């Protein structure tokens, strides 16, 4: 059970935030502030697992973005890293060589991919291809809508 996923830029800006537990805006802001402080100060040789309150933070840096997840203590840390890796791979494929700017300007796509990979904190699809196929289907549907609106 992942509790939340955050994408933080190196400057500490939130690029994506998905919360699987109900939190007030105040709590969210607090978590983001604390995690920004902790994670931006981490050094390369340190491990990607941080004990945070009663849970664990698993994070990984890809280029200028930190992918941060929070899991309960009993969850598999290595597997969570795997999930993050999976997410990044799929964004890479969907956007085509993804970079931070892509995610900024098309943040909804990042959310859609995430929604197909993870549902309510658990991995819903372990097949790499299936996730992208689903996102593609939805996108097609969207453009079909658009075409319809142009035609009418």
């Amino acid at each position, binding site marked *: 059970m992942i509790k939340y996923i955050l994408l933080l830029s190196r400057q500490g800006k939130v690029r994506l935030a998905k919360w699987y537990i*109900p939190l007030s805006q105040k709590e969210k802001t607090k978590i983001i502030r604390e995690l920004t402080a902790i994670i931006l100060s981490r050094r390369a040789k340190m491990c990607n697992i941080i004990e945070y309150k009663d849970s664990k933070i698993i994070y990984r840096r890809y280029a200028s973005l930190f992918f941060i997840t929070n899991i309960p203590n009993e969850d598999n840390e290595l597997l969570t890293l795997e999930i993050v890796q999976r997410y990044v791979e799929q964004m890479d494929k969907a956007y085509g060589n993804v970079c931070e700017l892509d995610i900024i300007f098309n943040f909804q796509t990042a959310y859609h991919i995430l929604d197909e990979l993870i*549902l309510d904190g658990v991995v819903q699809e372990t097949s790499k291809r299936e996730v992208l196929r689903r996102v593609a289907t939805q996108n*097609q549907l969207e453009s079909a809508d658009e075409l319809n609106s142009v035609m009418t």
Partner: protein
Amino acid sequence: MSLNPGEDVKSRLRPFGIVFEKSLRDLIKGIRAHKEPEAQSEFLLKAITECRQEVKSSDMDLKTMTILKLCYLEMYGFDMSWANFNVLEVMSSSKFQQKRVGYLAAGQAFRNEEDVLMLATNLLKKDLNSSSSVEVGVALSGISSVVNPTLARDVTDDIIKMLNHSKPYIRKKAVLALYKIFLQYPEALRTSFDRLCDKLDDEDDSVMAATVTVICELAKKAPKNFVNLAPRLHAILSTTKNNWVIIRLLKLFSSLAKIEPRLNSRLIPKILEIVETTGAMSLIYECINCIVVGEMLDDSNLDVAQICVDNLKPFFTATDPNLQYVGLLTLNKIATIQPHIISEQSKVIIGCLVHPDLSIRKQALDLLEYVVSEDNLEQAVSILINELLPNNTANSSNEIVLDDDFKVSIINRILDSCVFRNYTNISDFDWFISVLSDLIKISAEYNLHEIGPRLGIEFRNVLVKIPSIRSAIINDCLVDLVQDELVVSNLLGCMPEILWAIGEYSTMINDPNSLLFNLSDTFQNGIVSGDDAFEETGEYDKTLVILIPTLVKILNAYANGNSNYMWNYQEKQKVMAQLTRIIDFLNKTSVSKNFNVQERSIEFLEFLKLLKEAMEELSDDSLQSPLLLSQVLPSLFNSWELNPIAKDVQKAIAVPDELDLDAEIYPVDGSYSDPEDGYLKYRNPEYYNAASDSDISDSENEFTAYSNPLLGIQGNGVDNDGMYHDDVDELIMEDDTEAREKRRLKRLERQKNDPFYLKSEDEVNVSVSKDSFIEMDSDNDIKASTKKITSSKTVGKSKTKKVKKAKPVVLAEEVLFSGSGSVTGSANDLSAIPEGSKTKKKTKKNILKIDASGLENFDLNGSLEPEFSPQLEKEIGYVVEDVPDNTITNNNDQGELVVVSKKKKKSKKKSGDEDGTKKKKKTKTDAEGNVIEVKRKSKKKVVKIQ
């Protein structure tokens, strides 16, 4: 960059003025253009205001775009719940593109919001039943992220229907969404449990994987409902090749194995087989974790534990810090079950103590206790102390700054490993003493208040347990420490114990004169300044309580310590000077607001005044010191050597049956009916720490809670109170001297054969035993209680033990067994236990913990959603009581909704009848009787008797 076909269409439409997403781009570009924080926040506020206008527009495209913009702004911390109803509008759009944005926004913004979800219910139901599988999928995802109890109840049936949808994509989502429904609406579990389990056999792998995931999560809360599924799950484990599913299954099995140990014989071979065959580190890790967390390790399968450790080795010896971390983490879990098999890994673990990552360091630190031995203790400790030293951070810029909590835990771990099993690992006590004093100085330097008491206690323990180095410690170390202003002001917490030790062994002090001089001086300043911080914590008063008797003890040592000195005028003047100083000091403390301090001060003050009078009366050329100084003063302190006593031993002394503590024994009119009891009754209130005078066991609790844990009473200086009692006795019983004398002789007669009493000289009354816990039962009732304990005569002379040839004698703690009147063991019986006792304690703890989670029964909404308002909580607090063990469907008594409070659940847990493992452990404990009972509470004080 061609993102998707939609993007192409849009770009082709742009020349025609259809600029669908321009405004979102503008917003993002605008934010990026305003780099200055002030300008940016201004821009953001303006954007929000615009959004508030735009969202009201009737143009759905614009509305959708605004909602999307709000989603973006939400990441900057702007709350968007005010737009919830607009989000709902967008969600209900017929265009998928808009619907999708609506659902995205709903997932971000809705948080169990009753009103908006009520309105959304119909829409969600409609989407769930849509003909387009994509829409159904979006709706299912949406529901699982926004669902609340009411909504859960309303959509349960629709979602259960989806379990048989023709498309696996929908079935998979429905299964996962059901989990969230169960959390919010546990009642749904009754009706759909079987249908959910059927999905384990779904032809599509992803549906099966989702089902395993859901069952795994459910089983964490109430494993017993899923034990019956074990064979099916095991079959899946054997056939599937999907590592994700295997990991989930292992998680699930670790929950099940905890309550059904019979699974172990089937599981362990299978798990070990997976470990052998797989190459995935995360899977190996999960396998070992499953064995450890599932409590499959015990004394019977050491080989399995060994295999686990062997397979973990690539983890903690790896260069990847993540593997190192999880390796050490798991090693820590194994260590609590099988501590000894860790010791081989000492090199790696000690190496990790200086790892650049603090989490790894912390794990290694936790393991330290298990891996230190006589050979590597000094190395490990010196590494750690080096880390603590401030200059270390200066010379390497890469070094991490340790926070205070971490420093405290380092110090605690150093002490833990040093005192482990009664100093087994220490070969050189001079080294240990220097470590201790280094630690005190470091702690004082960093102002680490909280570690003070622990350091004091360790110092005292060493002094009490190792007679041969007492003199050296006191003169080389302690005497300096108590005069070190930095230590006194920053680490006052260690002072009571150190002062007590100095007082107790005051005869060994080389220069009591100057120490006395400085002590009263140092602490006098403290009283005068009346630091508020100290007053609040009461630390200063605690110190004073010990300091007062200590001063008198040192005075005693000073005046009587040297046996072959000649009493002369100079001596008299010197003693007089000190006496006057102490009296001055006590005069000040006697008006303290603290009861204990006042009491201590006054009782000694009176005695010292008498002493002073006696000295003044003495002619200057007398060659004999006054009797009060040469006889009475030493008799207060020197009559009895204190031995280390295991914690809680006092509790083992039973209250004699014939002792009626409620009977009135000393009526106010002064004529007591039963003189024997009257004596006792009168004594009891004098105990400073005893809250109630009527119950001995109560007052014992008081003692242990208040005083230092190891030595119980002695540490508090209660040993001095004999004098007080006797003064009082003298007063009340004057008129009854004859009867009293008779009683006294009777008592003496009885005590003659009592091992707990001094084979007394003539003055029994003055030299009341120092072992106050005997005192508690003493005099009139000692007979009864001693009868019960005499069979285990461990109290009395301490048993000294040679640990190693080179080592000084380390006194073992005295233990005494007797529970509710019956003797259940003796010291020899115990010797078999201590090695493992620590482990036992931990396993026991684990079991309790599991029990707590298992007890959540069907209250699936328990701890997961802490954010509910109380009202919501009440609504979802429908707890299914009395669910039969394995069949939930049987009980359809939906009318009976019981709101069970947390407390009730807890109490139910305690009676925990269904937990077989717990029961088993419990009987194990019982068989060993009180021994464990005594030991369980005192982790640090686990006794080592070899």
